[in-house]
């Protein structure tokens, strides 16, 4: 009887081990399937990511408090130390801005007169939403942040994200309360750009480093270190003229730039709707069909 009981125990142990091993194999296969699904169908994954980000808004708010407090303290100390310098700089800047204001008003007047003469159809005014950066999901493989504005705030996929320094990236997917922004330094990012002052067009390729690369330069124009890089309206994805960065190195046809925006220090961003068509609405149509 004792033997029978131990046999039964052994049998149940074997069954238990078998189930455990099968579950393990299933989970490994499931993980691989997820990797393949992510490659084939991004819509389900995007929706899942947006859903999780929406749920975790309160958690992200709490975890960002210490970092925000530390940054505020350090910036306060810096501000106090530089108060006198900053004051005189602002006075100078104010005088300059006053002069520029007069000049801008004059140009604006001229522009509207010329537009009337040419029957020019003006581009629609851009609308924007300012949003706090809730979480930073950037690492050595992907560069993205989660902003505290979603479809509830009329944010749409593909809208352009800027801050006070220049271009930040583009909205990759949108939840109800949050949206994920793919930064221009991300490996998957491609931005049509123009190098100033020559005006030569090219593509800015993100490479997960602080120094994205310029490729496919059109024409045989020389680019120099220190040249300014701005967005180009080619392909209708970005409006022209948003500051992107400055050329820092040119080695064997490899042109690298330093972005004006410090991607590690994003706290507030502005999500702008320029009403542009371009590549993204087609993708949106596919999403809607699904």
């Amino acid at each position: 009887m004792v033997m029978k009981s131990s046999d039964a125990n052994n049998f149940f142990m074997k069954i238990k081990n078998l189930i455990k091993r099968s579950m393990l194999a299933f989970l490994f296969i499931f993980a691989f399937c997820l990797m393949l699904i992510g490659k084939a169908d991004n819509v389900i994954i995007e929706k899942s990511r947006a859903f999780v980000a929406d749920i975790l808004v309160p958690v992200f708010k709490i975890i960002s408090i210490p970092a925000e407090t530390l940054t505020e303290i350090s910036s306060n100390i810096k501000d106090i130390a530089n108060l006198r310098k900053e004051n005189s700089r602002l006075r100078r800047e104010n005088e300059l801005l006053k002069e520029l204001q007069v000049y801008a008003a004059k140009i604006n007047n001229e522009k509207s007169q010329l537009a009337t003469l040419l029957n020019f159809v003006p581009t629609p005014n851009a609308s924007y939403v300012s949003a706090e950066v809730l979480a930073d999901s950037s690492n050595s493989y992907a560069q993205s942040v989660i902003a505290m504005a979603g479809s509830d705030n009329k944010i749409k996929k593909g809208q352009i994200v800027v801050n006070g320094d220049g271009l930040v990236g583009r909205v990759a997917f949108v939840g109800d309360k949050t949206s994920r922004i793919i930064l221009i330094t991300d490996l998957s990012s491609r931005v049509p750009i123009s190098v100033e002052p020559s005006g030569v067009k090219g593509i800015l390729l993100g490479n997960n480093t602080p120094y994205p690369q310029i490729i496919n330069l059109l024409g045989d124009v020389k680019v120099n270190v220190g040249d300014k890089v701005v967005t180009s309206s080619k392909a209708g994805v970005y409006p022209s003229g948003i500051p992107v960065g400055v050329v820092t190195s040119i080695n064997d046809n490899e042109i690298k730039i330093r972005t004006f925006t410090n991607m590690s220090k994003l706290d507030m961003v502005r999500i702008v709707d320029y009403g542009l068509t371009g590549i993204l609405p087609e993708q949106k149509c596919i999403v809607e069909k699904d």
Partner: protein
Amino acid sequence: MQQSFGKFKESKAYNFLLKISPIIMILFIIFIEHAPVYFSYFSFIRPQISLIVVFFWSVYFPESLGIFSVFLLGLLSDLLFNSVLGLSAFLFLLMYVLLSEYKNFLTNRSFSFVYVIFSFVMFCASLIKYLIMTIENNSLPPLMQEVVSYAMIMCFYPFFVYFLGKFNMYLIGRSINVDK
């Protein structure tokens, strides 16, 4: 106040909380990984600290984790980071299965011995990540940043082990008291 806390410490709920504390810790670390840090260039080399915690609990208290919770924690990490979905789930699970299998071999060993094993495990994890991301992007991700990230994980490990070890000792002491 102290009395009610003392009563709570003796309750089943407190024991349950202690039992699932490694899961809560990993969850907490996954959230912390997403906190904005505002250090220049940090976002390009951000290390996956949760790997340290998964390693530690897989070696010292694997019973508290379980394959499903480890898998789900990995999945959550993947959903939050904009990386390949299933990659962290796969890595967490692989680490958990292998390390819990060699638990008896690794526990009661010197810190330096476990540190060497940890460095090897992290190297393999980084290599798998690098290869999968290369396939995913059809191009080589920057190697130097991954090396720096790996070095950061190696530097953080002793600090984490110090605090996690203290907590683990508390858990062990607690389970002895409960057994008595």
